[in-house]
């Protein structure tokens, strides 16, 4: 992710040489100290340190990449903060670094900013910083992940209005601009616009103390924080990709909080379940026979036993789904419920299609990603087995993220044949527009096909607000099930947060993306 | 055929090596079998005794039993091995090791595998001095060079730094002999010392052994299957068959008038003992499996003279004259034939 100016890190070569020399010199004698290890005691914590174990090391800590799961868990609301935040439970927007916002005309929003806030490096937070942060995320060369994620191609113009106010102008009217802005983390205007920063500065309750590559990230409390001081003076992140090891670390008192545990390892003492807003579904490629026949697609939907999959494979940590968004997201249709499987009817549909010359025996690739969610390969096997009972020829293909993305995103790979892609969609924004534009539009980036009728409904719904917006998107989801059937929904998932008995913390639907350390308190008996 | 006269040395009353009723058992998949069955012989200093027999008759196993080098699957079942009057079988391991080299030594066949391929010959030849005399590496090396000169290795100082594979077969056998006689043992067992060598080299090696025997006044047990070597180099002979000694005596007497049909058969198979134009005879058949040793005479299956008695009763090794003995019911009949 380099800017076009090619050599951005001009110290690379001498450092590499020095490292090589050091390596040669050290290897034989340093057999008792791992490189990068520090000496902060056996569990690496110490009194007053909150220890969190993630599933993987964050690739960067740049706040503009905070929509990456591992990065967000560390950065969001801990190191840097957005102007506005969305309450994950109520779905309402709450003030943070902006105290107030309103629409001054259809394309312009004005935000009043909080005063008396300083960055970790002592600089005061001003409107210039806020404008800079938006500009950096959307316009700079840093290739910010958040840019495409929430702004797509939206044109923005940001102006400061004194030190404590900001106006944002969009080319088209944008009713959910404040929601979009809630994804932008504020950084000081001195932050690089050429490259991502490794140790970002923010206004959050914690500041980065030390990032030992491959080993840990240590945070310390920001004592000049504008809000309530967090309970723990220090925090330390480590990462283990094996869920059982993460669970073992909670059990063994080596960590207080852990990302995603597996149901098998979870006990009441070491974990707590929470709805993580993720929904699993099977996306059927409606452009390829036999999946181009709606009877075949609907038959698949009828034969899949969502209830059993949710109960057995997801260990009850899921609810059968009938749409892509869970309750709490604008557009969720409470009337859509997963029906129990109906093998006979499904079989009849497929037979019908076969009679009409649909090549139902053609091989369908069922593609899933390793590590997508716990027991993903078992889930794929269950789906394959259930689809095979219909007489469909289904072959499982497990992939890694990169290969899965090839199938997930337009342009789709050529010559792949009919594909049933196991997807997991998490709508972090709380609004059905994000889901529908991605997954349901005929030319949506993650949609294989659609209908003109549905496209129109989606466009119309996007311009509405309030209850009408809710009803319109709910109708869109119902229409997908009745008229399009691109998706066979599996379940609304719940995550498992590893939590030791030493801390108090209630996860919410945003916990997977942002883990607010300031909300973590020691349990009544003081943590050891 | 010249036979050296067994010159009894002054201390001759006491044999240097005396083996009495030695039996060795082998543990096999199908049970324990007796590979060496109650054999006895004695050698005095300066005298060479040949243990003669086909391969598999137990002669090498006898040598290993005497030297205390049996593999774990074999064990001495009974008997005594007296070296200078002491029964070494009753000695502890450490005491026995103290004798190995200065008192009792052994030369193996196939010198290529008997020499350690990854050590210089100098180090290997010096080892006995380091073990038994506690010499330093350097002094042991000096001794090794001296030994190499004694056994006729040219340029010994330079070649002491060489490895076994850099020597010819004859030279390697010389090295092995040098190693065995390094500490001037009283008893030297030579196990087929010339088998792997060509004829001219064989003669040189045998001569070297004879010279060293004279020099150190050693008792030599020469294990061989080669009648010619026995005839030329040994004073006494013990003929072995299927784990037993079937005949003993001075070489010239035994060869002149064998007292056992097996000895007779062996001698008849040698070309020089056969008239021109006559077919070479060999002993028909093969020795019995050790698991299937018959109840009576061990040789009965191949014996031209076998009778009913042979199947029932095993002949004991009975004296026939002052220095001879044979294990045949009909040895007198054979001698008179």
């Amino acid at each position, binding site marked *: 992710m380099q800017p076009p100016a090619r050599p951005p890190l001009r110290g690379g070569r001498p450092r590499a040489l020095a490292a090589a020399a050091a390596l040669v010199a050290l290897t034989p004698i340093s057999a008792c100290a791992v490189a990068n290890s520090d000496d902060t005691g056996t569990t690496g914590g110490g009194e007053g340190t909150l220890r969190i174990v993630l599933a993987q090391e964050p690739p960067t800590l740049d706040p503009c990449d905070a929509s990456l799961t591992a990065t967000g868990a560390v950065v969001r609301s801990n190191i840097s903060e957005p102007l506005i935040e969305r309450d994950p439970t109520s779905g309402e927007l709450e003030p943070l670094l902006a105290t107030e916002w309103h629409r001054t005309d259809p394309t312009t929003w004005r935000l009043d900013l909080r005063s008396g806030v300083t960055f970790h490096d002592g600089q005061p937070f001003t409107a210039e910083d806020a404008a800079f942060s938006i500009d950096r995320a959307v316009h700079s060369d840093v290739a910010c992940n958040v840019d495409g994620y929430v702004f797509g191609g939206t044109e923005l113009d940001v102006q400061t209005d004194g030190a404590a106010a900001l106006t944002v102008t969009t080319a088209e009217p944008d009713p959910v601009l404040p929601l979009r802005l809630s994804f932008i983390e504020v950084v000081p205007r001195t932050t690089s616009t050429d490259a991502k920063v490794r140790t970002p500065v923010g206004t959050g309750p914690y500041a980065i103390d030390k990032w030992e590559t491959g080993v840990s990230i240590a945070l310390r409390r920001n004592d000049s924080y504008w809000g309530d001081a967090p309970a723990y003076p220090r925090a330390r992140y480590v990462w283990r990709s094996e869920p*059982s090891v993460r669970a073992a670390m909670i059990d063994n008192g080596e960590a207080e909080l852990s990302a995603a545990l*597996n149901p*098998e*390892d979870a006990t009441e003492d070491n974990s707590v379940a929470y709805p993580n807003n993720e929904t699993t579904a099977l996306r059927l490629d409606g452009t390829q026979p036999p999946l181009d026949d709606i009877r075949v697609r609907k038959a698949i939907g009828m034969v899949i*036993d969502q209830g*059993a999959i949710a109960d*057995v*494979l997801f260990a009850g940590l899921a609810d059968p789904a009938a749409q892509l968004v869970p309750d709490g997201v604008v557009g969720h249709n409470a009337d859509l419920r997963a029906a129990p499987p109906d093998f006979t009817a499904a079989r009849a549909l497929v037979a019908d299609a076969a009679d009409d010359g649909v090549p139902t025996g053609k091989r369908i690739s069922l593609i899933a990603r*390793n*590590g997508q969610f*716990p027991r993903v390969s*078992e889930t794929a*096997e*269950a789906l*394959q*087995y259930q689809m095979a009972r219909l007489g469909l020829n289904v072959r*499982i293909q*497990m*992939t*890694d993220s990169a290969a899965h993305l090839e199938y997930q995103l337009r342009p789709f790979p050529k010559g792949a044949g009919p594909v049933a892609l196991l997807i997991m969609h998490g709508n972090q924004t709380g609004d059905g527009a994000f889901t529908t534009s991605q997954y349901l539009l005929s030319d949506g980036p993650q949609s294989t096909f659609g209908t003109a009728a549905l496209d129109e409904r989606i466009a119309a719904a996007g311009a509405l607000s309030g209850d009408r917006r809710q009803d319109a998107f709910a109708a869109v989801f119902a229409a997908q099930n009745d008229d399009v059937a691109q998706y066979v929904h599996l379940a609304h998932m719940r995550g498992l947060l590893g939590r030791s008995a030493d801390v108090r913390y209630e996860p919410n639907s945003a916990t997977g993306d942002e883990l607010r350390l300031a909300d973590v308190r020691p349990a009544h008996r003081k943590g050891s | 055929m010249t036979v050296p006269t067994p010159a009894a040395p002054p201390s001759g009353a006491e044999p240097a090596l005396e083996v009495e009723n030695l039996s060795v*058992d*082998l*543990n*096999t*998949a*199908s*049970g324990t*079998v*007796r*590979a060496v069955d109650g054999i006895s012989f004695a050698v005095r200093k300066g005298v060479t005794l040949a243990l003669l027999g*086909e*391969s*598999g008759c137990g002669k*090498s*196993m006898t040598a*290993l039993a005497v030297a205390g080098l049996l*593999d*774990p*699957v074999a064990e001495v*079942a009974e008997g005594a091995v007296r070296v200078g009057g002491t029964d070494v079988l009753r000695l502890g391991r450490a005491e026995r090791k103290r004798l190995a080299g200065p008192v009792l030594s052994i030369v*193996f*066949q*196939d010198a290529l595998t008997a020499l350690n391929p990854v050590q210089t010959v100098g180090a290997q030849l010096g080892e006995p001095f380091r073990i038994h005399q506690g010499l330093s590496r350097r002094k042991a090396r000096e001794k090794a060079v001296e030994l190499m000169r004694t056994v006729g290795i040219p340029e010994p100082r330079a070649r002491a730094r060489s490895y076994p594979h850099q020597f010819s077969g004859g030279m390697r056998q010389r090295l092995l002999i040098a190693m065995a006689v390094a500490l001037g043992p009283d008893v030297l067992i030579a*196990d*087929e010392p010339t*088998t*792997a*060598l060509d004829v001219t080299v064989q003669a040189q090696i045998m001569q070297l052994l004879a010279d060293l025997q004279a020099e150190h006044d050693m008792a030599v047990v020469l294990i061989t299957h*080669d009648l*010619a070597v026995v005839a030329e180099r040994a004073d006494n002979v013990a003929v072995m068959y299927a784990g037993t000694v079937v005949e003993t005596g001075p070489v010239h007497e035994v060869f002149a008038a064998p007292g056992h049909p097996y000895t007779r058969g062996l001698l008849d*198979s*040698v*070309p020089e003992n056969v008239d021109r134009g006559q077919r070479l005879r*060999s002993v028909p058949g093969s020795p019995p499996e*050790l*698991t*299937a*040793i*018959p*109840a009576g005479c061990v040789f009965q299956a191949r014996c031209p003279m076998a009778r009913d008695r042979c199947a029932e009763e095993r002949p004991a090794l009975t004296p026939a004259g002052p220095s001879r003995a044979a294990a045949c019911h009909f040895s007198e009949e054979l001698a008179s034939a």
Partner: protein
Amino acid sequence: MTATPQDPGPTAQDPGPAPQDPGPAPQDPAAAPRPAPRPARWWTLLGGDRFAAAAAVVLGLVLTAALLGPVLLGDAAERQDLRASLRPPSLDHGVLGLLGTDVLGRSMLARLIDAAGTTLSVALPAVVCSLVIGSAIGMWAGYHGGLRESAAMRVADVILSFPSLLLAVVALYVFTPSVANLVLILAITRIPVYLRTARAEAAELRSRLFVDAARTFGAGSGATIYRHILPITLPTLLTVATVDFSFVMLTESSLSFLGIGIQPPDVSWGLMVAQGRQYLQTAWWIAVLPGVAIVITTVSATIIAAWARLATDPAQRWRLTAPRARRARANRGETPS
């Protein structure tokens, strides 16, 4: 005078108990002129070694399962029943429920049998391919030496330097994932092992006399390698191959752990262990049973390989007899025939 006809030739080996081995199998080749008294009865030897016999039975069962499993099982290994998820091993649910069920309610017993076939169809071809290719190149390189040897060795270095997981990712995500691709990768990554072993042995043999002799008689290099180098190198290579057999199974399992091994719905023991690891605390049988299957199969293969190596090597065969060491001693001459 020359040696008697029955005597060992000049290349006779170790005079220890080996050639005198009275085991029921044919005697040592030194006694070759003798007609072999009995045909080779390897099963007797096998029966004599309880460990080897048990190992042979285990391997036989695994092979039978792999070959006949699909026929006998029908779709039992695929049949899912989410209501029967994670049943522990018990006698309550018929034969198929004997070893419990996995999370999808499939019979563990049926899956283990089904997986035996896949596991072997990955491990065996991978081992055989790498063995054949690696040994051929290695012996060729070692026999010729020089530039060809250097080139082959550097090729081996290059292969060794490639992370096998990169190859696995390429094969899985670029080409269609299949057992054949996995075999190919495992075979390629294991070639250097055989290449290096075969080269070392061939280079050593190259210098030995008999190869020189074969060469001067005008034999082509291929023929010489086949006739003179291969037979001597083979035992070592086969031993390496047996050790590799377990390595290949474990690598396949590790690749499954990283998500790049055998892909469901195909199932191998390695994949079962990898998938079952998450149930170690709640449903031990899912990961432990296939793990045990891997362990006992590879241990059996190793035992059989060690046994076969001894049994086919006359100089070593007597070792097979050791465990029966202290049997009741047979009396002299009374061992049943």
